[in-house]
């Protein structure tokens, strides 16, 4: 049914028709993949905004989309972090111990530019008075 509704308006809906087709299959496959976020928590936040669905697959779809969104941001922040630490390691190149373990810490310095690319401007105060 969603496929037919999407296919009926004519202009520029071909991609969506294909996507709708793929996603209805995806929804069937989705039952095998469990998202990291529990269903009840996601359902609660959706209910708070008025979205009530009896279909758990829909909830899982939203959960996985959110997870992917977060992991994309995290990947970008990791890139920033690696760029920063690699530049520091190049400065401290005389290191007789060999390759030490690199521990990546996610800080606001990496997160803010990563969010900037997604259009989210995060400005946090450094301290609270």
């Amino acid at each position, binding site marked *: 049914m969603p496929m037919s509704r999407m296919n009926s308006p004519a202009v520029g809906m071909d991609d969506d028709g294909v996507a709708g087709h793929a996603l209805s299959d995806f929804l069937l496959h989705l039952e095998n993949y469990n998202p990291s*976020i529990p269903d009840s928590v996601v359902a609660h936040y959706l209910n*708070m905004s008025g979205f009530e669905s009896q279909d758990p697959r829909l909830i899982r779809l939203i959960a996985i989309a959110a997870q992917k969104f977060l992991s994309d941001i995290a990947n970008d922040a990791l890139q920033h972090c690696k760029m920063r630490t690699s530049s520091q390691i190049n400065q401290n190149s005389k290191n007789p111990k060999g390759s030490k373990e690199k521990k990546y810490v996610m800080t606001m310095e990496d997160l803010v530019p990563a969010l900037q690319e997604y259009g989210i401007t995060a400005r946090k105060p450094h301290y609270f008075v």
Partner: protein
Amino acid sequence: MSEAAEKVESASDARRRILNIAVSTVLLETGFDSADKVALETLTEILQCFFTEVGNAAKGYCELSGRVEPVLGDVIMSFVNMGISIQGLEQYAARPNRHVIQPPQQAPAPRTPAMLSAGSKAKPAPHIPFHLPPLPDPHAYIRTPTHKQPVTEYEAIREKAASQKRDIEKALTKFLAKTSETHNLFNTDDNQVYPLIACKPTFPAYLTCLLPTDQVFDFDELEYHFQVANRTEDMPPDKKDNSDNEGDNGNDDTANSQTDTQDSQAPPSPKT
């Protein structure tokens, strides 16, 4: 009310903490070893806003097309609206190293203790619809008298009043015989056999008959009169010890005659 606010906050805190855990899981999968608290909180806030926004937009699209239950198409449209691509979703879902968080335990709702109910609740009458709540405990609306109705027959009341009066008199006379002064019929010292309540003569004795009053208006006057009644100067000496006067035992006769005249002019009040 603060308790209710605290409970609501703790419930949202629990969910918020789970979101925190989920964000940390994602960061771990990405390759981070640790994160700043500020950064973690920012990402949790972003996640919560994501859910709220998707829910709002999907509900809007669903209602726009005249439906009540959202469908896959509504969710897709809201993703498109927010600029979230759906292309790589399946590959992402099938990634090898994924952790799943345990769903939170549901705390059992506190039941009101059954010990507060007394008696069995009555069945609702047939004219009451079944979807209304059950009737309360019967003692809440049924009144049972706790005492017998008093007897209202004239004879019984009359008899009761007479016997009460007799009992009261007997008890009072016994009490006075034991506590106040007593006369002795016989010429012995101990007086356990037949005590008589001592009669306290007033001076002058005819005064109460001449001046009738039925109410005491001034208690000072009454006290004064009582003092007058207990004067021991005119009594025979063997009765002086029995009177309950405190200060008058040392007066001589001249003082007595003076006080006599004063007392006759004193404002009279009867001894009740």
